[in-house]
Structure formats: C-alpha cells, structure tokens
C-alpha cells in the first residue's frame, strides 16, 4: 500500500476511535472490544508474524493484567480511579516480569514445540486461577462499580482502550522500522544464521515478548473493569476464545505485515458482531469451523492475497 493510503487508513481509524462512540452511542461497547481485538492481533504479530514464534500463550499476560487489577482494587481500599491506576501499573509490571521469566525458559524452544508449550501454559494458568481461593477460584472475581454517570463508563473504557491500541500500533510501527525490527525478521527467517551473524537473539526475543506482555496486561486491566467480572477460563485465561482469536485475526489480515493484524481484527470483529447473536448457541462450533477454513484455505491472509493479486496484475 502506498504511503498516502497508509495515512488515509490511520486517519479513518483515529476518527472512528474519537468520534465513533459519540456518534453511535449504542455501539460504544462494540467499539471498545474492537480496540481490544486490535491490541490482541498487533501484539500477537510481534512474535507470531515478525519473529516466527507462534504463541498460544500471549493470553496469559492479559489474564495477569485482569487479575492484578481485580486484586489491587479489591484489597487496597483505594478510590476507584486510583485503584485502577495502581492495578494497571502492578499488572503491567507483573506481566512484563512474567514475560521475562517465562521467556528465558520458553523462548529457546523452537517451532511447534514452542506453540504446544505456550498452549500448555495458557491452560495451566487458567486451571491454577480456577483452583486458587485467593483470587476467587472457579467463581471468578467481580470488579468494583464505576463511580461516574450512566453511560460514561463505556465511553471511558472505549477511549482508554483506543489509546492503548493506538500507542501499541504506533510503537510497533516504529520498532519495525528500526534495527530491532530487522533483528526480529532475521530470527524468523533463519534463527541459526541470525545467531551466527552475532545477533544476541535471546535478549531480543525476551524483549519482544515483554512488549507484547505490557500492552496485553494494560488492556487486560481495562477490559476486566469494562466487563465487570472475570472468569478464570472464559475471560482472563480464555485460551479457546481470545487466545485463538488473536492468532486467527493476525492470520486473517496477513501476519508479518504492518496493517494486516489491524485489518484482520476489524474484519473478524465486525463479522463476529453481525453473525454471533444470529448463530444461537452454535457460535463456538462456528468458530472452530472458521479456524479450519481460514487456516486451510486462506493462510496468506488479506494482505497476502492483495499483494499476490497486484503482483499478478503487474506481471500481466
């Protein structure tokens, strides 16, 4: 895509983010979830698309963010916004720490072993949270009520998640233009050669996972407050929904491209919102079928398809 249309899309998204919730107040929550989905897809793509490490475990950091905010807000006795702010700080801190520790243990594992290991990590985290009484065990945790006026709450979380998504996207965009971005691609394309060229691959990989963890935990604390309730397996460590969606959205849009994950998140979220209520209890069956169809028939994604089409037209 040319430079010009890049800015067009950015302007359109920014306008949607700022004006959308005001113009279409009925859809505020949908907008908030859209920004959350964009954070999911963009952060997944840092490892999955750019670095070639396909993770099913990123949702763990989202869950840490959810639970950290909930525990801080429950136990510290602070007013709502102070509690939320402290919860977000502690949550992101814990998530980055977890990413550094887990990363130094897991990021040496390559290929499909890494994918399965992170899948195990997700399920284990959900099961531990579901058995741990301090965080409400299987019945989850409720978050404090938003103190403001009716309707203000949705607006607040929609704007904060938009800000998180925008920061995340802009930071990634800048990172991909630096040497760090090139190093990520080198690790994806040939890990051993990247090592041989003298790249310090382990710190690079861990740092990349820490960035993803930071934004996931931030959005986790906000999303938990927006939803108002966290369930260990269905909200916080939701490997079978959010955890797979982030992979699916990045692949649908085109992994390893700048706009692909964003585009995939938008297309996936809109499709889901339109069809979900209509499917009546068959949603998760449809999700399974959708994964199979996208992965088997459309692995190059929308951006890949676009590039192929343009290449063919130029050749003709």
């Amino acid at each position, binding site marked *: 895509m040319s430079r010009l249309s890049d800015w067009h899309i950015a302007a359109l998204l920014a306008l949607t983010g700022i004006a959308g919730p005001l113009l279409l107040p009925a859809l505020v929550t949908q907008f908030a979830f859209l920004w959350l989905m964009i954070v999911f897809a963009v952060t997944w793509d840092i490892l999955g698309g750019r670095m070639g490490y*396909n993770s*099913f475990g990123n949702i763990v950091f989202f869950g840490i963010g959810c639970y950290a905010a909930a525990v801080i807000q429950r136990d510290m006795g602070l007013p709502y916004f102070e509690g939320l702010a402290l919860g977000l700080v502690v949550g992101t801190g814990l998530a980055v720490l977890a990413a550094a520790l887990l990363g130094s*243990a*897991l990021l*040496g*594992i390559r*290929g*499909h*072993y890494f*994918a*399965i*290991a992170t*899948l*195990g*990590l997700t*399920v*284990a985290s959900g*099961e*531990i949270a*579901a*058995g741990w009484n301090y965080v409400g*065990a*299987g019945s989850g945790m409720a978050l404090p009520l938003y103190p403001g006026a009716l309707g203000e709450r949705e607006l607040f979380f929609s704007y904060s998640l938009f800000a998180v998504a925008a920061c995340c996207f802009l930071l990634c965009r800048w990172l991909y233009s630096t040497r760090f971005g090139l190093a990520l691609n080198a690790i994806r394309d040939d890990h051993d050669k990247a090592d041989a060229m003298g790249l310090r691959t382990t710190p690079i990989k861990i740092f990349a996972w820490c960035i993803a963890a930071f934004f996931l935990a931030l959005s986790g604390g906000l999303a938990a407050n927006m939803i108002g309730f966290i369930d260990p397996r269905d909200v916080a460590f939701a490997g*079978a929904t959010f955890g*797979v969606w982030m*992979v699916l959205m990045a*692949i649908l849009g085109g992994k390893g491209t700048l706009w692909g994950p964003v585009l995939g998140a938008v297309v996936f979220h809109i499709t889901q919102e339109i069809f979900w209520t209509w499917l009546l*209890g*068959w949603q*998760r*069956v449809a*999700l*399974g*079928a*959708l*994964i*199979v169809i996208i*992965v*088997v028939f459309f*692995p190059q994604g929308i951006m890949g398809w676009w590039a192929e089409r343009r290449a063919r037209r130029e050749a003709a």
Partner: protein
Amino acid sequence: MLDNLSLLVEFPAITLDVVLNGLLIGAIFALAAYGMALVWGVLNIVNVVQGELVVLGGYITFVAVQYGLHPLLGLPLSAAIMYGVGWLIYRGVIFRVVDRDIFISILATFGLSILIQQLANLVFGAEVRSVDAALGSVHFLDGMVTLANVKLLAFLLAIGAGAALWLFLRKARLGQAIRATAQNPRAARILGIDTDRVFAATYGLNAALCGAAGSLAVMAWTIHPYMGLPYTIRSFMVVVVAGVGNVGGVVAAGLGLGALENVAGFVLGVEFQIAFVFALMVLILVWRNLRAARQRSHLE
C-alpha cells in the same frame, strides 16, 4: 496439601492404591499416545484433535450402551466407527495441511478440536458420563487397595494393542508401507506406494486407537466434552518423552504419567490435576530444550 503427603508416607497401602490405579489409567494414555506417535512419525503433524477423538470414542460406547449393547462390545464398535471418522477427517482437512508448515497443521487441528468439543457439548450435554461395565473389583491388603476389574482389563487391552501394533507395523503389508512412508515419502512413492492412501489409513488407525482408548476411559473413568485437550497434551508429553517410533517407550511413559498424575491429584487436590498435567508438559519441554542446549555447547 501436606496432610495428604504425610498420609502417603504413613500408610504405604494408600500409596500403593493411588500408584496402581494411576498405572492402570496410564494404559489408556499409552493407547492414545501410540496413535499420536504414528501420525507424528508418518504424516509429520502434531494432531491437536487427538483428545477429541478419544472423547468421541467414549461417547460412541456410552450411546451404544444406552441402546442395550454390552459395554465390552462397545470397544470394537468405537474403534470401527472412529476409523471411519478419522478417514473422513483426513479426507476433509488433514490431507490439505500435510505438506505445509507444521504450525498450519497445529492450528487446523486445534480448530477441529474446538469444533468437535463444542459439537459434543451440544449433542451429548455437559454432564460427566460413565458406563458401568459390571465387572466388579478386586480388593487386597484388607480392602486398603481396590482395583476395578475393568481397569485391569483396560491395562491388558492397551498392552495387547501395543503388541499388535508393533507386529502390524513389522509384518503386515500395510504396516510395512506405513514404515516406508515414514522413512522417506518420496522414495516410497517411487517404489509404487500410494502414500496418500497410507496417510489416510494411518490417520484412520490413529482414530481407531483413540476410539478404543475412549471406550476404555468411559468404562474405567469418566468422559466429558471438555476433556479432550488434556488427552492431547498427555499423548504429546508421552511421545516427547518416549520418542516417535518407540512402542515400548510409549507404554512405559504412559504408565509412568498415569501414576505420577494420580499421585499429584491426590497430593495437590483433584482441582489442580489438570493444571499439573499442563505444567508438567511445559516443564518437560523446557528440560528437553536445556538438555539439547547443553549437548550443543559440548559440541562446541
């Protein structure tokens, strides 16, 4: 938690009961793991839908028993129907991802796993199901140790199936074709082996083994729509520890895992048993990676 641990130390008979029951359940894990090793070795894919095939096999026996079939006859029925299901899954999805990037096949089979899990939830309901095979149980050491006969049967059948599989892969024409394809698909094609049919048969055989495992699981234990992924992870773990193409190793690792898991479930509490399974898998992969890194540094 520590109370249970001291209980194990003070009363060896309880320890014996927990370990023996775990070993017998482990035979079911070994059965599902043979299938995973087969598919991994021959098709070079990690079959994440493995556990759902086990669960489906269990439901087939459960439904057949509702219609008045003897539970033990449910076993061959499950295996036969699951062979067909496996063949269909291969023809529908797997053959399209066999020669692609391994992550594509992981994601595709993960999608299938969610699909089947949710279908099972809608069709059979979320209740925990089991079938009483009415075989009684044996007691010894003054009733401190109780072993259900059906678990003993499951154990013998799993060992028998392992031996039969070993013989089949060595002696039968199809078994030899499967091994040839596993070693070198291109050379096998040149020598006139229809590798596509070998793949389909291998996947069907895997599904049949899972079906048998599920049938035994519903008799000796319980079945639940969401129990698939733990079986997948157990099979994966067993194959990682034993290695692809090592039937004896798979039996040993499967039994060991069963015993370990049962002891962990007893000490940590049943609510942490699944967490233990997944965390153990992560630890095994980390350990494997560290060992490989050490070997690499020796070479330097």
